[in-house]
Each structure stands twice: as C-alpha cells, then as structure tokens.
C-alpha cells in the first residue's frame, strides 16, 4: 500500500512539473518572438512596406491590439483545444500542423524502430567485451559518425544512392509510397541519415552506463561467484544501468521531432521542424507557439517515460 502511494506521488509530481514547464516555455517563446525585429504585416509586405500599408494591413489582420493580449487569448483558446488561426495563411493552425506532425512522427517512429535496438545491442555488446576488437571498431565508428555533420551524410547518400546508382529516390516526399517496397525506398535515406546521428549518441551513452555499473563491487562479486560474463552484464549490471540508458535514449529521440530541419530540407520532407522555421521567419505567433508546444510536449513525454523507467527499474524507489 505504502509502496504504491510513493509511486503515485512521484508520478503526480512529474506531471505537475511538466505542466508548469509548458507554461514557462510558452512565455519564453512569446518574449523571444517579440524581441525579433518586424511583425507579420511588415514581413508580408516586404519591400513594399510603407507606413500606411503596414498600418492598414495590421488593422485588417487584427494585429493592432497589444501582443500580450493576443497571446493570452491564444492560451485561453488552447485550454479549450483550439490552436487558433495562422496569421499568414489564414488557415487553422491545427490543419497546418496535422499532416506535418503525422509525417514527422512517422519518420521518427521508423527511425526509432531501427536505431534503438541497434544502438542498445551495439552499446551493451561493446561494454560486455570492453577493450576487444569489436569494442574498438564500434567506438571508432561512433566517434566518426558523431563528427561528420548530417548534411554531409545526407548529401553524400543522395549523390551515391540516387544520382550514381539510381536505387533510391532523391526526394522522400512525393515519391511512390504505394507498396511496402516503395515506402521502404522512400524512407531509406532519411532514416539512415537520422539513424547515424541518434544511434551514435545512444551507443556511447549505453556503453558508458553499463561499464560504470560493471565497475561496482557487487558486479565484481557476481563475477567472483562464478557468473559468466554474459550473465554478469545482462543479469546483474544492466538492470542498474537502465535508468541512465533510458535517459540517453529519450534525449536522442526528442531530437527526432523538432531537430531534423536539415534532413527535412535535403530530402524535401514536409515535417514540423521546417514549419517552425517558416513560422519564425514570418513572425506567425499562433503557429510558432503551437509548434513550440508540440516540441515541448514530445520532449517532456520522452523524459517522463525515461524517468518512469528509471523509477520502475530502481528497487529502492519501487519499495
């Protein structure tokens, strides 16, 4: 009874903190947007922005009331599930985001499904046979992958697989996605590029976390009692390294929602990262805020899942 109460209090705390974080981020994004020079009317008019034209357009768009009131109005709307209207395209924000979020999540899901098992296997393997040839090859590869910028990986991949060999389409969006084979083709290059970046981080963190637990006295004790190396690592060390590993995975994956602007640009893939960049360059407040909220929620969600994993895997907290 007592045990489950502590558990629920912990979860409630996590959720409460998440909600407060969202509000703080929202205000921070609002103030940062206000600091940017120019507003949506000036951006839309560009070189033709004379004073009267800007004033007229502002009035027509309802931008003449103070920004903070518009922002609070938007927050009020959000509480009832309304994301508001985009200033620039005059379309509901929810409609603009819906398709692109689905695209982003699909890409993230495919990348996760491939890179997480791969990264965990390589990371744990490298820790298990620490110092072996396998460990060295994995370490050298991960460091090389981390040091090569992803636009380079992406551009090279396109050059080799699409232009020279002609195996894969150069653009992911708009390519044939009718059959499973065609879909795999379309997603192959973005997923490989993203997989490189996120797996490399996860492999290094996993290896470090497992090695750290291997060096603790209780694991040494297991070894002395005659446990095999595999049993020592998988049975004794790994459960205690799960918390840090889950955090490393969460951090790497959170990048997949909002941080993939380069991959979206090179493969012409319409996701939310590019939407956010567009929104900022046109000072489209409702759209900026909605995108920021989505990034923040996905980040918090992943971190919370990681924390829960850590809590559940920690016998002291479970008790």
């Amino acid at each position, binding site marked *: 009874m007592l045990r489950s109460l502590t558990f629920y209090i912990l979860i409630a705390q996590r959720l409460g903190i998440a909600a407060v974080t969202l509000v703080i981020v929202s205000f921070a994004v609002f103030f940062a947007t206000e600091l940017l*020079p120019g507003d949506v*009317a000036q*951006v*839309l*008019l*560009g070189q*033709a922005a*004379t004073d*009267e*034209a800007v*004033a*007229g*357009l502002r*009035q*027509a768009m309802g931008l003449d009331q103070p920004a903070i009131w518009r922002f609070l109005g938007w927050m009020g709307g959000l509480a009832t599930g309304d994301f508001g209207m*985009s200033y*620039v*395209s*005059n*379309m509901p924000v929810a409609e*603009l985001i819906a*398709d692109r979020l689905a695209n982003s999540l699909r890409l993230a899901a495919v990348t996760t499904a491939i890179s997480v098992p791969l990264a965990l296997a390589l990371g744990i393997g490298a820790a298990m046979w620490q110092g072996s040839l396998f460990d060295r090859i994995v370490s050298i590869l991960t460091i090389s992958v981390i040091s090569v910028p992803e636009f380079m990986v992406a*551009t090279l991949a*396109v*050059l080799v697989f*699409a*232009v020279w060999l*002609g195996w894969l*389409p*150069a*653009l992911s*969006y*708009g*390519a044939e996605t009718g059959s499973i084979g065609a879909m795999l083709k379309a997603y192959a290059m973005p997923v490989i590029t993203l997989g490189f970046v996120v797996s490399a981080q996860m492999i290094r963190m996993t290896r470090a976390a497992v090695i750290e637990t291997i060096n603790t006295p209780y694991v040494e004790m297991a070894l002395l009692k005659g446990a095999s190396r595999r049993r020592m690592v998988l049975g004794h060390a790994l459960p205690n390294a799960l918390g840090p590993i889950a955090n490393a995975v969460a951090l790497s994956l959170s990048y997949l929602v909002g941080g993939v602007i380069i991959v979206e*640009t*090179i*493969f*012409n893939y*319409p996701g939310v990262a*590019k*939407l956010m960049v*567009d*929104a900022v*360059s*046109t000072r*489209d407040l409702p*759209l900026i805020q909605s995108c920021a909220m989505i990034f923040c929620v996905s980040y918090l969600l992943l971190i919370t899942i990681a924390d829960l994993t850590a809590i559940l895997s920690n016998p002291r907290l479970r008790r």
Partner: protein
Amino acid sequence: MTDRLPTNWTSRDDAMVESAIRRGATRHDLLRMLMASGVTLAAGGTLLGSATRAVAATPVSGGSLRAAGWSSSTADTLDPAKGSNTTDYVRACSFYNRLTFLDETGLPQMELAEAVETTDAKTWQIKLKSGVAFHSGKTLDADDVVWSLKRHLDPATGSKVNAIAAQMAEIEAVDPLTVKIVLAEPNADLPTILALHHFMILAAGTTDFTAANGTGAFTCEVFEPGVRSVGAKNPNYFKPEGPYLDSIEFIAISDNNARMNALLSGDIGLAAKMNPRSMRMLDGKPGIANYVTTAGNYTNLNIRLDLEPGAKAGFAEGMKHLINREMIQKSVLRGYADIGNDQPVPTNNRYFNTELEAPAFDPERAKHAFEKAGLLGTEIPMVASDAAASSVDMATIVQQAGAEIGMKLTVDRVPNDGYWSNYWLKAPVHFGHINPRPTPDILFSLLYASDAPWNESQYKSEKFDAMLKEARGLTDEAKRKEIYWDLQAMVSNGAGTIIPAYMGNIDSFTDKLMGMKDNPLGGLMGCAFAEYVWLAA
C-alpha cells in the same frame, strides 16, 4: 560526331548560341562568331544544330511535369496581390491570367484583354475577350476586372503593388466587356504594368484563397502552403493552343545541391535558379539542358555622391575604370551574365542603349582620376555582404586592382541580417542588389529620380527628372526610345552606381522539356513556363 566537338564546349556556350539566335543572329553570324573563338567549321555546324533544334520544335500535348523552385514556406499564397516568391508567381501564372503579358522581347501582348487603347496615355479603354470562363464556370466580365484592380488600393489587401496601383485614379466598368481606367498622370507603360504578376484577374468578391478560381491554363487541384501545388490542364481554357502539359506539380527545394541531385536522379523534371558554381556538375550530363535568362537583376557598387569620398570629383570615375567587368563576368559569375554599362536597363530590354559602352578596365586612368580627387593612398572601406549576391567576390577583385595602383580599398564584410536596413543606401561605398523590373520608367523612378525612394548614389538632376516625366506620358515609341537612351547615358556617366554585370538566371531541366523562352520578368519564362512548355516524346 562527338569527336569533332571541341572538348571545352559547355552548356554555357550552348546558352550563348541560343541567346544569339533568339536575338536574331543568322547562321552566318553565329559561324563567324564561333570561328573567331577557334571552332572549326565542321564542328561549328554540329553545335549550331543542337542549339537551333532546341529553339524550333513543334509542340506536343501530354505528360506531366514536376518542377522545383528554391523557396517556399507557409507564407505561400494563392492571393496574387500578396505574392512574393517564385512559387507564388508560378502558381498565379498557372491558375490565373493577367489582362496583358510580356513576350520574350518585353513587348506587352494581350491576354484577357482584347485591346488596351488610349490617345493621351491618361484615359485608357480596356476591351475584354468574350466568352472567357473562370474554373467555377462563371463568365469573365468587366466587374471582375474592376474589382481585381481596385483591391490593390485597399490597405487591408496587403498588396505588394499598392504604390504602383495608386496611380489608377479611376477604375470603372463601361459595359460588360469594357473597363475604363483614368490615371492621375499620363503613363504610356500601363499595358506593361498590367502584366505584373500581382495584377492577375480574380472573380469579383473572392475572399477564399485556399483554392484558386481563375481563368488560367491549369485548375488548382492541390495547394499545400510550403509543401506543393498541383495543377491539372484546364479543358475549357480560352487559348486554343495551350497548355500542352496534362498536369504540373510545383514544389520547392531550397538547398541548391539537393535540387540538383533531384534533377539528376530524375525525381524532378525542372530545377529553377541553379547556382553557377554547380554548373560544372550539370554541364555535359546527358539528358540535362540548361536555359539562361538574363532578365537584369544585378549586384552593383554604390558610391554616395553626397558623402566623402564620393563627393570628391574623380572618385566615382576612377572606380568605374578600376572595376574589372570582364573578370567579374567570367570568374565571379562563371560566364552566366552580360557585361553592364552602369545603368539599370538590362541588355534584353527593348530600350537598352546598345551604343553606350561600359567604361573600360583601365587602372592607369583610374589612378589618374584618384590623384585628381586627392584620394590616392587614402584607406576607403567598401561594405559588402552575402545579402547582395556575389558582392564579396566583386569587392575582392576591386580591392586587388586598387592595390596595384596604390589605392587602399578595404572590404568591410558585414552580416546578411539587417544589411538592407542598416548598410544599403546608407554607407558611403557599399554594394546593393536590384531585382528585375520590366520598364525603364519603373527602374528610373525607383532608383534615379531625385525623389526616388531607393536613390542608391543620391543622384540628383532636374533635367533627368523632367525627361523621365516626359517619356512616361509619350505614346510615340521612337521618341520614347530616344529619351530612354539619353537617360541611360546620363545615369551611366553621372550617377555613382557601378553596375558591372547583369546576372543570368539558370534553369536546368530534362532535355525532353521544350519551349522555354526568355522573359523580362525573370527565369522560368517570368514564372509562366507551365502554360507554354511541352515534353517531347
């Protein structure tokens, strides 16, 4: 056949030959031109064969094309008044029509209008074609035209051409197929102004721009801002000959390499505005053709005549002879440019003054002029930025030429962000970048009249202002041309704006795509290519 081709023949040379053909060169002229550069007669004939074939071919119908521009965002719009980038203009030209349009020589031709008539350049009668239908089925009439033009005057529209439209003092429907426009001041350029992308004709009362209801060659099937637009052939199009394509999809790939790779791999059929630097990759690739439009955007070196050092007589003159135009054209712009003669009307404009020579690269003469101004040896910064395309490279070339005659010019490289509001028009010696405008009147009024909003060198001349106003109201073409030639000479000699080259815009596409032509409104046939091109079988 290939063994007779000179090995260093590139698509740039193909483009040069094609451009000469379009400007009316005969086969004999071309062969002479090639022989002068050392091509044998036999090889010359082969080369001309390929270039002339591209210019003259019979259109065929059918096929669909996916084309990619370079910028697209959630600000993409189907409202022609708000259009600001290529994707907007391409959409507007595909889904709507203008009253007039500009042909490859820059002459206004009738589109929705049957005739645009005036006697005094102040009161205009516009007769509309009859039986033109919108995609919704509604028939075009004078009310649609009046409404479409008047909305530019309403600040709530947010029109980009509000300032240009302001001269239309009176717009009214005379009968269902006639519109009368009275201008505040005579302006003989009205037919050209009506050909600007923003003056597309909408159905009266249109407020919903999530889909397009125009009279254009394609109906709007898909419009996703920042993602893609798809048009399908309009079966009821009022022009009997077009369009040839069954459908057109337009997307944007902002990264130059990604756009090039997509073209090379066949994912797209057309890539707009390629960087001259990537032409080495595209040159000589089988199945790829390039088209260079020199519409007249340029990066210029501006010397404010009201500030030191430009205020000293001789400084601007010295700089004009110190800038190596040929080197800028050949190495900075890789040959995809025409040499400029320090005035804003580009070579493909019908008013271009062909007798006005560009100041020669002559360091000795420049040195003499700087000595006269008493500035030899003074350190003078030139403000350049990536915001003004290629300006940093140009500045470096000028700097090196200056160093050889003992002139200490420094390159002051500043960030892109805020360049146009903080440095352009303000610094004593700085670079600017001007986009193409279709008429000398718009260029001169915007850039050189005493009250011009963007008077880059603060050039002031009452004589110039009077002549500009006189030409604006003239309907006599010969007289107009004479005045515009004089104005170009005045600017070239008197103003402090050095225009070393008019840049070319390179569109690359599959060699199956035919029918691409020049246009004074820029690359992609002034964004109207979709209606005119066809795919060879």
